[in-house]
């Protein structure tokens, strides 16, 4: 790895006589494009928005999303809840809300914000929050 950087540096030295680029300044970062947050969000919204999403794809998507080191944006969750509605699965919708609260961990302000953002969707689809059903406590 270091030798290729040195060669590249030497190559640039050979071509340009005036520019003295030090070989060690060439970093070895990966050349893959880093996905932005917006791209990530829209990718997941599109995933759950598929009209003929089946139960396996919903479960797989949700389990993968919860596996990431982040709390999903309300718009992704909105898309997922609508997918639950298409699949006639109220229980999974409530489970998703529970999972979001668990993902927030010590940051207690995230879950109320998410619910507040999702409130119109929850009312439209008729999804009760875990608190409304009383299952947020043992």
């Amino acid at each position, binding site marked *: 790895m270091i030798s290729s950087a040195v060669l590249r540096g030497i190559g640039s030295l050979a071509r340009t006589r005036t520019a003295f680029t030090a070989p060690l300044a060439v970093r070895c970062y990966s050349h893959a494009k880093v996905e932005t947050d917006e791209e990530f969000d829209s990718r997941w919204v599109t995933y759950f928005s598929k009209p003929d999403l089946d139960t396996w794809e919903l479960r797989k998507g949700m389990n993968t999303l919860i596996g990431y080191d982040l709390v999903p944006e309300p718009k992704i969750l909105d898309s997922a809840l609508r997918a639950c509605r298409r699949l*006639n699965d109220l229980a999974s919708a409530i*489970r998703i809300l529970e999972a979001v609260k668990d993902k927030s961990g010590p940051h207690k302000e995230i879950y109320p914000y998410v619910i507040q953002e999702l409130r119109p969707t929850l009312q439209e689809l008729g999804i009760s929050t875990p608190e409304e059903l009383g299952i947020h406590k043992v």
Partner: protein
Amino acid sequence: MVVSDVYLHSLSQSKTPTKAKTFPLALSLFLSLSFLSPPTLFSWSVSANSPSKDITHKLKKAMQHLTARRVAGLLSRRGVAAFSSSGVKMASHGHGGVTEQTDMSVPLYWDRLDTPLPDRPYKDTLSDADKSLKQKEKGPWNSLSKEEKLALYRLTFNETYAEMKKPTGEWKTVLGGIFFFIGFTGLVVLWQRYYVYPPHPRTLDDEWQAMQVKRMLDMRVNPVEGFSAKWDYEKGQWK
């Protein structure tokens, strides 16, 4: 039995061992008998030729068969377990008490915080009431009452997140176990103090120590900065 004979011989030759020493010796003796006897017997059966050793040879053969059968039995059981495809755990006491192992070839249910939606719903077989509720689920959810929503949740899931995260009180068991074994160790140490340790040397008695101190002071041990320097010789007391 050459190895074990020598071992016994050396044992009797040594000083009478204390109670604490005999247990590891007995254990190693037992292990040596069970593991060393088959190979040693096999090696003798090859070398034995003379007719005078016939009776002892027959005895050794008999023992060889017995131990070989035991060894063969062990090996065959291990072989069966290695080749078995059912995935059943080998119970120590045979076929009666085999624990049931989950069939991993079908979709499983689980309650996991990091994987919210398991492969199958919790309740697979639905009663008629459940089935009608499931039918109602296909309509608008606003028309479902709270109890119905809760029932639907419980059909699909066993424990809620709150129930999964409930504290178990396992720490009490752990701490109790720790204290119990510390206490038991204390009892063992106490028993040891009274039944294992030899009597105290007399040089540790108070009388002896007092006489020793007097002797040290008379000898003027460390008179400049140490022991005797701390004794006031005029007043006959410690400074």
